[in-house]
């Protein structure tokens, strides 16, 4: 919450996060000034890449008191305009799930042990990033909460599985050990409302803690104000409120 009587500031910068294999992962980081301890969030960027929107989302979370880190999941494909790097990834047939999970786990571990965090780390992402956040949460017991924003292909047909995508995220639900927030547009085609229903039913059957919210007038990517065909202001404003409430309730 903003208080006009309070001084505030943040540090926003590119950093490198140490991987378990010893390599370095570029990431965009934003956190409030001060020693905290701050709850933390790892953001998984969407298909268009490590772009301006995700830098803004990272800073928005810092504005609300979180230590947020957004790794460049496409860094192994080259550096340049995010759009061009994203095209490299498309040409290569996409980044593998395991590579993203490894990147996510490295960021979670870095934040969990950082001296200015409270050790509680959420993962969050939109579009392919929502799927990646869910995959990471299912593979890392250190994750304290997950925010899935219209992640597509959580439900996958057997013929969609391959070396890059060996398991459908929905089939990892039993491994999930933290609460889930999901936001979806009823006009979306990836995921479809029926796929969201299916995911919800599996979460219920597994006894997981979760809340799903559906927006009747929204489609895919309804937060993206820079993409007028996707943006739906009313749903986006409510969605951000729900995210901040969920993160404050689960991480503080």
């Amino acid at each position, binding site marked *: 919450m903003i208080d006009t009587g309070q001084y505030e500031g943040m540090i926003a910068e590119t950093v490198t996060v140490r991987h378990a294999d010893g390599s370095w992962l570029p990431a965009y980081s934003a956190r409030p000034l001060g020693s905290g301890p701050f709850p933390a969030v790892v953001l998984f960027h969407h*298909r268009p890449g490590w772009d301006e929107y995700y830098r803004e989302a990272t800073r928005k979370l810092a504005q609300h008191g979180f230590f947020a880190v957004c790794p460049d999941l496409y860094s192994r494909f080259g550096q*340049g305009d995010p759009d*061009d790097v994203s*095209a490299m990834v498309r040409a290569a047939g996409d980044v593998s799930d395991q590579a993203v999970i490894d990147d996510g786990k490295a960021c979670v571990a870095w934040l969990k042990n950082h001296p200015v965090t409270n050790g509680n780390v959420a993962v969050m992402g939109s579009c392919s990033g929502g799927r990646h956040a869910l995959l990471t949460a299912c593979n890392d017991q250190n994750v304290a909460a997950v925010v899935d924003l219209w992640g597509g292909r959580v439900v996958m047909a057997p013929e969609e599985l391959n070396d890059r995508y060996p398991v459908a995220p929905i089939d990892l639900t039993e491994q999930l050990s933290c609460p889930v927030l999901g936001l979806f547009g009823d006009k979306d085609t990836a995921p479809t409302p029926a796929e969201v229903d299916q995911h919800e039913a599996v979460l219920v059957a597994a006894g997981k803690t979760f809340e799903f919210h559906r927006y009747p007038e929204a489609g895919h990517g309804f937060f993206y104000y820079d*993409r007028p*065909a996707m943006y739906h202001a009313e749903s986006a404003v409510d969605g951000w409120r729900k995210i901040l409430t969920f993160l404050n309730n689960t991480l503080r």
Partner: protein
Amino acid sequence: MCTSISGQIQTTGSAKGASGWFSLANITVGYDHPAHLHDNHAILLDFVNHDLGPGGRVAVELTAESARELIKALGATLADGEAYEVHVSQ
């Protein structure tokens, strides 16, 4: 990727990008979220030479209808060109 719909062909040709002309190595064809076109999905064409790094790329985003028109125009022009080559070789 959101749709995972993409394919790639090897190609011989040239393209002109922000830094001038370069030799093409591949064309990637995808159907996914466009970066610039105001639509949820589009046909994405990337004319690339990845030896030049991520910037070795000329990008085109088309609506499905425009992509169909392009296919027709390519087919018609190619047929005319082939007919011309036959004519001049006789």
